[in-house]
């Protein structure tokens, strides 16, 4: 019966093509937009993802999201250290400052001041230089994409001298980090230098990064820290979710991408439903003949499901292929929040399931006529 299903489906090449292309287009829209959406939302939590040594983030109660820092006194670090269940705790400083190049150009950058001794939250991957270089006088790392915006048309290299917040600094390393939400170049340096760059007079800490002792759950330790210090504390996963939720709530990305993804769904359902409907109307007599001969409804349903499954898989492969090609070609050229965009395997699989599901549902709805057709019509001319 599978062979019959395929023959009926492939016989009408134009309809088959319309089905496959409709599904491919819907897949492209849904898959690509979901992947961009995922990359964008993930970029809002970049620093949390990169400081993976820490599994607890501590901050002032007023902080709602990663980029909205509210400095605390350095004393907070010691208070966190004294909470039972904390293995270690280090200061972390983050601010936006103005960078000036030797030839006088100016650029906003994110400066990240990491703890001098532990270097927690320093970049993991260096393209040029090594982590140890951060100990050198006036040392800064610039991320590769940021370097290209600060020094256009210049090959990646260390050695440049810049001024950030009127403080001199030497580029001693080029880091490779994922895209950030703001799209600003990211400068990693020691916290003491970062504070001077931000022209702070006191000795502030943006976050205290901590790690739960073995055998303690980060979320439990975070609760203990809150209770003991009155500060806000989260496991890094918890803070990531809080930041993502904040971004989804206030930035409008969910609406923007949601509309496109919904469009993909509507187009997919409309094309598939419409084509399958026409398909079943035109083949009604053939299906009626099968029913008269003695093919049960559930087997006809099976044949139609196989047809739907087949076109949805073929359409999905084409659509996801085009989407992947898009990422492969354009991803290296993108800047800002879209830089380093990729398609998470979960989105690949999720889109696949979703496409198969909507195809199945829309064609099963549109072939009701086939199931309800009175086989006696085969005798009518």
């Amino acid at each position, binding site marked *: 019966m599978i062979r019959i299903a395929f023959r009926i489906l492939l016989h009408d090449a134009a309809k088959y093509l319309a089905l496959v292309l409709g599904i491919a287009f819907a897949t492209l829209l849904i898959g690509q937009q979901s992947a961009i959406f995922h990359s964008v939302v993930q970029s809002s939590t970049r620093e949390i993802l990169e400081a993976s040594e820490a599994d607890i983030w501590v901050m002032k109660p007023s902080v709602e999201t990663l980029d909205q820092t509210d400095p605390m006194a350095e004393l907070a670090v010691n208070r966190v250290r004294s909470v039972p269940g904390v293995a270690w705790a280090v200061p972390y400083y983050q601010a936006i400052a103005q960078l000036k190049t030797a030839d006088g150009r100016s650029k906003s950058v994110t400066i990240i001041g990491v703890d001098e001794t532990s270097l927690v939250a320093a970049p993991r991957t260096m393209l040029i230089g090594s982590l140890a270089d951060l100990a050198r006088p006036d040392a800064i790392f610039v991320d590769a994409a940021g370097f290209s915006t600060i020094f256009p048309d210049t090959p990646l290299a260390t050695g440049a001298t810049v001024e950030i917040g009127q403080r001199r600094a030497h580029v001693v390393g080029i880091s490779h980090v994922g895209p950030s939400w703001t799209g600003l170049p990211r400068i990693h340096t020691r916290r003491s230098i970062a504070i001077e760059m931000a022209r702070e007079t006191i000795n502030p800490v943006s976050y205290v990064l901590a790690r739960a002792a073995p055998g303690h759950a980060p979320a439990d330790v975070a609760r203990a820290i809150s209770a003991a210090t009155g500060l806000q504390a989260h496991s890094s996963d918890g803070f990531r979710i809080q930041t993502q939720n904040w971004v989804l709530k206030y930035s409008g990305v969910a609406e923007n991408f949601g509309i496109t993804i919904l469009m993909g769904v509507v187009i997919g359902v409309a094309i598939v439903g419409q084509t399958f409907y026409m398909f079943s109307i035109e083949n009604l007599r053939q299906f009626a003949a099968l029913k008269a001969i003695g*093919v049960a409804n559930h087997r006809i349903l099976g044949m139609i499901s196989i047809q739907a499954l087949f076109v949805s898989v073929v359409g999905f492969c084409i659509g996801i292929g085009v989407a992947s090609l898009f990422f492969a070609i354009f991803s290296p050229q993108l800047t800002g929040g879209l830089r380093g965009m990729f398609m998470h395997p979960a989105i690949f699989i999720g889109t696949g399931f979703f496409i198969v599901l909507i195809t199945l549902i829309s064609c099963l709805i549109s072939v009701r006529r086939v199931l309800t057709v009175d086989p*006696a019509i085969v005798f*009518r001319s």
Partner: protein
Amino acid sequence: MSGVVCQQVAIEFPSAAGPIKVLKGVDFEARPGELTMLVGPSGCGKTTLISVIAGLLRGATGSVNVFGQQVTSLSNRQLVPFRLANIGFIFQQYNLLAGLSVIENAAVPLVAAGSPWPDALDAARDLLNTLGLTPHLTKLPRQLSGGQQQRVAIARALVHKPRLLLCDEPTAALDGKSGQAVMGLLRDLAVSPDRAAIVVTHDPRVYAYANRIAHMEDGLLVNVEEVLPAQLATTH
């Protein structure tokens, strides 16, 4: 063997002006080993009667017995395998599957009944050969003439060796010569000692292929005429 025995079969269809009685108590018989023709003016209920016999039309009263099975007492669910195992159909409009080749079309009832494709295709090939269609096995139905398509339909109707063959106006869409040829093949292939064949027709030119001709008028069987062997059309 009993073949098809209908007693006092009646059915009515609802209409705006109240129910219309289309069959008004038909007594009809089709014996195994014979070709029975069902003839009568348009609208007298011929198609309705064979639809009831096939179990395609429910709601009739009276008794419809097909080779010992009371069709009216079967559920819709039981009717599907019953038709698949016992009945072959030939329609005026052929109703072949457009995407399937000639040989695949002829194999459909066997495949539907669970035979593997190779076996089903072998059986179809033999039958199509007898029907003179060997040069056309891999063609699609639309590449054939009407008469050739109807011969494919004959193969499809007989491939699973049903005990009852139901044909509704098998020659109506064909010119006289093709119609005669199709009827000749039907007689040769369809009539066998353990099979009953019922052919609904309007076409007096093919009456000669019948063993028995049942005349219907306005929902009733009015006369059954036996065709003597001497009058039977000789084929080939």
